[in-house]
């Protein structure tokens, strides 16, 4: 007999004591069932009554019920996710893990030491303001391991210092300098993270940052488009995307710039308030998506006026914009990505057709996992690499292959920044950080680092993270 039933019997006993006192109180099981608050005991006592009333099933009725899903068909299958809820979950960025330890001695990257290379080979924290900016421009990707650590931190690797040197060169040069680089490297080698570091350094140095976080979203025809009036050949604007870009611009750029008054008087389809500021101009485009492209051009004109800060233009997933987009022209032919105004704007600056008057940098990262094949781009990157390394051995295009001439043209004198694997010293720094965060429970010594470095394909940082942190966390069922 279960203990709960015992208790019930005892409680009945106390009720019944007032009645027939002749029955021995020791004999618990033979107590008569008299009035109690619960009737379930009495009902449970006679389970036979139910059985007798059930007749055998009639002929022809289905008695074997084995079809899947039948049971749940009538029932409510739980709350369905609302529109956009699943996507929001998929794209959610988690930047902290309360279970990870705080790493003592982790210093933030500051404005002063952002570009001077003194932090090379160290882990640095990302300052809260910079985190806000990077979040606004969607520089953090859901696939990256930010959610494993207490707070966002990043390794200042050799390539980061190279990039910092380039940005420093822009700041220090007398006349305006525009740095144009394509970040190339193997899959999981940290191209998007280097782009993030570039954005971080630029925003710390109070540059204007404009970023296209996913080039695919520009060309996959998920947002509306319209021909630009008076353009020949026809260009296409993307109003919803541009309005979103403007709102990201407002969130990502410093208050000083946004609150500064306009020095130009743009002619726009909608009126500006008197004595407008840069923010009010951008707000106009956010509020009126149909006017967002004229607003964007007006904003660009404003940002390139003398005395404005340098600009960092960044784009991730370059090969998506080096082919036909999924949009269709009026005659049902695919629109080349370069005919979209925003892409055109970026490509003009990447190719150097339009320089940045106040200096700045144009960075484009290729993607290792999500990139459509673009032979012209691959070839151009090979040529660019050969020009930098072995100028006497520049490859030639196979004449019998079709070529996307527009891609070749825009990529013809672009330079690349190749990202290779980490050195063992850098790998050691990262792994010590993992260990200090409590996410790697092992003694980080030369042997261990060497093993993981080798397993990670000679220091591929994504693989290193997989091999040392994610694997263990995954095995514990944490994810």
């Amino acid at each position, binding site marked *: 007999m279960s203990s709960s039933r015992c208790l019930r019997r005892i409680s009945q006993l106390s009720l019944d004591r007032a009645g027939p006192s002749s029955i021995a109180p020791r004999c618990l099981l033979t107590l008569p069932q008299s009035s109690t608050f619960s009737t379930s005991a009495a009902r449970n006592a006679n389970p036979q009554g139910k059985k007798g009333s059930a007749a055998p099933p009639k002929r022809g009725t289905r008695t074997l019920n084995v079809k899947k899903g039948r049971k749940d068909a009538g029932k409510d299958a739980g709350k369905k996710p609302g529109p956009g809820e699943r996507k929001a979950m998929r794209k959610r960025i988690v930047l902290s893990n309360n279970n990870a330890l705080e790493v003592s001695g982790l210093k933030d990257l500051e404005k002063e030491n952002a570009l001077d290379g003194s932090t090379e080979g160290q882990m640095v924290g990302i300052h809260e303001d910079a985190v806000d900016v990077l979040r606004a421009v969607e520089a953090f990707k859901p696939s990256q391991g930010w959610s494993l650590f207490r707070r966002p931190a990043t390794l200042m690797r050799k390539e980061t210092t190279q990039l910092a040197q380039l940005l420093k060169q822009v700041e220090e040069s007398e006349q305006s300098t525009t740095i144009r680089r394509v970040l190339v490297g193997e899959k999981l080698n940290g191209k998007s993270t280097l782009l993030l570091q570039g954005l971080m350094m630029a925003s710390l140095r109070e540059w204007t940052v404009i970023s296209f976080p996913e080039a695919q979203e520009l060309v996959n*025809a*998920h*947002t*509306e*488009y*319209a*021909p630009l009036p008076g353009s020949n050949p026809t260009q*296409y604007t993307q109003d919803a995307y541009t309005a979103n870009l403007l709102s990201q611009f407002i969130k990502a750029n410093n208050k000083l710039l946004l609150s500064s008054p306009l020095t130009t008087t743009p002619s726009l389809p909608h009126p500006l308030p008197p004595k407008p500021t840069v923010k009010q101009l951008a707000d106009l485009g956010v509020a009126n998506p149909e006017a967002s492209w004229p607003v964007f051009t007006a904003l660009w004109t404003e940002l390139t006026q003398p005395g404005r800060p340098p600009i960092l233009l960044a784009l991730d997933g370059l090969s998506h914009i080096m082919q036909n987009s*999924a*949009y*269709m*022209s*009026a*005659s*049902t032919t695919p629109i080349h990505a370069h005919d979209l105004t925003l892409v055109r704007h970026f490509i003009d600056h990447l190719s150097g057709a339009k320089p940045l008057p106040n200096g700045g940098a144009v960075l484009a990262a290729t993607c290792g996992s999500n990139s459509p094949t673009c032979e012209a781009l691959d070839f151009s990157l090979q040529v660019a690499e050969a020009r930098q390394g072995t100028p006497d051995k520049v490859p030639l295009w196979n004449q019998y292959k079709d070529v996307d001439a527009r891609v070749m043209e825009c990529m013809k004198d672009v330079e690349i920044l190749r990202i290779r694997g980490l050195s063992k010293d850098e790998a050691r720094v990262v792994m010590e950080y993992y260990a200090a965060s409590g996410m790697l429970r092992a003694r980080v010594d030369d042997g261990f680092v060497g093993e993981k470095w080798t397993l990670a394909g000679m220091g591929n940082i994504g693989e290193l993270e997989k091999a040392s942190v994610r694997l263990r966390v995954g095995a514990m069922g944490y994810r």
Partner: protein
Amino acid sequence: MVFIFGVNFPEATLVKRSLETFYGIGPKVSQGIMARFHIFPYAKVGSLKNQQVLDLTAELSEMKIENDLRRQVQDNIRRLKDMGTYRGRRHAMGLPVRGQRTRTQITTARKLNRIERGGQGRVKM
């Protein structure tokens, strides 16, 4: 609800899907129509501008779709039958028209080959 070519569509319907409910419009034709008016493939009916809705309706009213198209197809079949051709007879009998075997596998012919081809009217969404 948005009124396109005499039919009301809920705002959350894809434009592509709503166009393809009309007899005579399939994937290719709907793609062409949407490209002509610069409507992106994932556009919902609710997000169309008034002008685009009017344009679509005007475009559809110039096309031979729905009952006009049905009538044309049925007239073609009826003509064959009235002339007493083999094809006309096969249509009338609901059998394959183009020399296929009839021993097995003629369900599609049974379904489609008839004088009143294309049904009576618009299938409601």
